[in-house]
């Protein structure tokens, strides 16, 4: 919008002298692109690339998964790396901006010559990067993108998490069987493929179980005001609301729903997994439930040991689901690299595809024929500003 204002006014102003200057700039740009920047990786190491939302709207996702990944790579390096070499992680930030992923993944592949690309949590940006990795035949492993379309982009694209049909179905079953709800509204984001996917599979299962979805509303990522949608939902008289969005919006949605007098439970998926969610919603998050990949309250010994090592590395921070997925993403990659015996993309791809019963902290991970991980989900209940591990749902 802004730019169009400038350019439409500007086109009248480009005189011949300006044109010359413009040509000069273009020539300079071409010259600069000609000289290749040297990669900063130390010699004789295996370079792997990560792209993550370290800043911006979904920053806590990127930061958490990045911390998990770094811990995973560091631990692998401490025990001798892989193939007799150290692994060097190149991290790029996409600023939670759609479109940016394409640029930085191209950069990782052509400039840094990475052997594999690890990343994104947000499905939208994984969907942007996947075709590029597929075309260049560089294996890509997403730690946490749950939209089914991601791995359908090609046989070089993998993920270490479950997918939306499972997550949406699990929440629909939970709403119907455990919370005994029959009339539920769906409020999803129109701009996030993740949200649309979850909403779709939730609705499919909930209707199949005999439930009713009288109203369906949509918002755009970045919206702050949801009173309009929530007022319409309140008028529809529902027993619960399924809000499969990301935490920055869902936190505000919870607060505004309670403010409008909606007491029904709100439910969602792993997009809620952030400390900011509870900060934004506060007491409004009481009586809310979401499905996710892992809980630090899980008493399994490998999980508790991971929590301790993570806290030691990252100033006492407790790893959330995205951190655990990042850690498992690094683990699956290193494991496959060792089995592949070389950094040849084809061999590496085959080794990742052959991953079986890898003992991850987010559950035992097997890569299925469609390159998705088959693993359980957990359901978390929010109450008094805290999250509680409620139950595990098997695949």
């Amino acid at each position, binding site marked *: 919008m802004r730019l169009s204002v400038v350019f439409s006014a500007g086109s009248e*102003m480009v005189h011949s002298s300006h044109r010359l200057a413009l040509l000069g700039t273009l020539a300079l740009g071409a010259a600069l692109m000609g000289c290749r920047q040297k990669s900063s990786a130390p010699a004789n190491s295996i370079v792997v690339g990560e792209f993550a939302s370290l800043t911006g709207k979904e920053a806590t996702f990127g930061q958490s998964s990045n911390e998990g990944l770094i811990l995973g790579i560091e631990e692998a390096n401490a025990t001798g790396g892989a193939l007799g070499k150290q692994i060097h992680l190149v991290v790029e930030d996409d600023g939670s901006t759609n479109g940016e992923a394409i640029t930085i993944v191209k950069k990782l592949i052509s400039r840094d010559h990475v052997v594999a690309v690890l990343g994104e949590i947000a499905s939208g940006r994984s969907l942007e990067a996947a075709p590029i990795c597929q075309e260049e035949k560089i294996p890509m492993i997403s730690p946490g993108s749950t939209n089914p379309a991601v791995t359908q982009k090609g046989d070089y694209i993998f993920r270490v998490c479950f997918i939306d049909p499972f997550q949406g179905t699990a929440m629909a079953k939970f709403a119907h069987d455990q919370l005994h709800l029959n009339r539920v509204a769906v409020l999803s984001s129109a701009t996030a493929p993740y949200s649309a996917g979850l909403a779709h599979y939730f609705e499919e299962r909930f209707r199949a179980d005999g439930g009713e979805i009288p109203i369906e*509303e949509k918002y*755009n990522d970045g919206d*702050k*005001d949801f009173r309009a949608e929530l007022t319409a939902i309140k008028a529809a008289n529902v027993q619960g609301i399924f809000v499969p969005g990301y935490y*920055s919006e869902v936190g505000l949605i919870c*607060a505004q729903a309670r403010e409008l007098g909606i007491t029904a439970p709100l439910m969602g998926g792993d997009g809620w997994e952030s400390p*900011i969610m509870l900060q934004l919603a506060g007491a409004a998050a009481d009586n809310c439930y979401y499905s996710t990949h892992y809980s630090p309250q899980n008493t399994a010994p490998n999980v508790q040991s991971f929590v301790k090592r993570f806290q030691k590395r990252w100033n006492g921070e407790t790893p959330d689901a995205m951190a655990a997925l990042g850690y498992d993403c690094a683990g699956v990659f290193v494991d496959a690299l060792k089995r592949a015996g070389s950094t040849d993309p084809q061999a590496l791809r085959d080794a990742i595809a052959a991953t079986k019963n890898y003992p991850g902290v987010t559950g035992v991970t097997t890569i299925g024929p469609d390159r998705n991980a088959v693993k359980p989900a957990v359901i978390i209940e929010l109450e008094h500003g805290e999250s509680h591990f409620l139950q595990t749902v098997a695949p």
Partner: protein
Amino acid sequence: MIEFLQQLLNGISLGAIYALLAIGYTLVYGVLRFINFAHADVFMAGAFIGWYGGQFMPSNSIGSGLAVMGMAMVGTALLGMAIERFAYRPLRSAPTLNVLITAIGVSLLLEYSGQKFFGAAPRHFPPLFPRRDFNVGHLTVSSDQLLVIGVTAVLIVLLQTIIYRTRIGTAMRAVSLNPRAASLVGVNNNRIISFTFALGSALAGAGGILYASNYPAIDPLMGVMPGLKAFVAAVLGGIGSIPGAALGGLVLGIVETFVGGSSLSSGKDAFAFAILIVILLFRPSGLLGRMNVEKV
């Protein structure tokens, strides 16, 4: 009917914030004839000043809420004056296009230095004002919504008084009408322009606090979308006209809310901008704007 009234109320409180911001665009356009794109980021700065101020103040009291709002208004007024002094004044005799591009530059500078200093993750804005929900029949009215509407109304009346009842307001109108003639009769143009920026930015600061108390997630890019909408509101109402900006803000807020509550909810932004196009087709100078031919 209840739903209709509730949506109307939601729309008015959203529109009131757009109105506050739109007035800032209109004020600057009035004296300098360019769109100050950095305005939306001054709004963001107001919210962040409020966030830091809120750390030292007891929450949930009207006194501290107003004190923080005052602090944000003074802070953003100074920021607005600084932007004018260092970015726009050196370009006073340059073509408007240069100033416009500089404004976009300042806007990006503020947004990304904000990301550098405040971090990009959304922060929770502390509850400054005490909150209560009133139930009138089935209608829920929150004190935040009343506050937004009340403060906006008071500030608009105050602004109209300054512009039409004071000497400095007369000078502002003179500069707006003809800067050269104004300086010939002894008006210090630089001082008036500086004052206009202070005034507009203070309104943005107040808007930032109100917006953040209503939607308590603030981040350095929070101004972008409301800023764009407020710009639309200003053009919709007739750029350069203060009542027009207020009306434009309300119209936009109400339309957005009604579309948002319907089955077309995902298209609410598209509707807001479509209205702009339709109104400009039939009334090119906006709802309350005066028709005049611009010399290019």
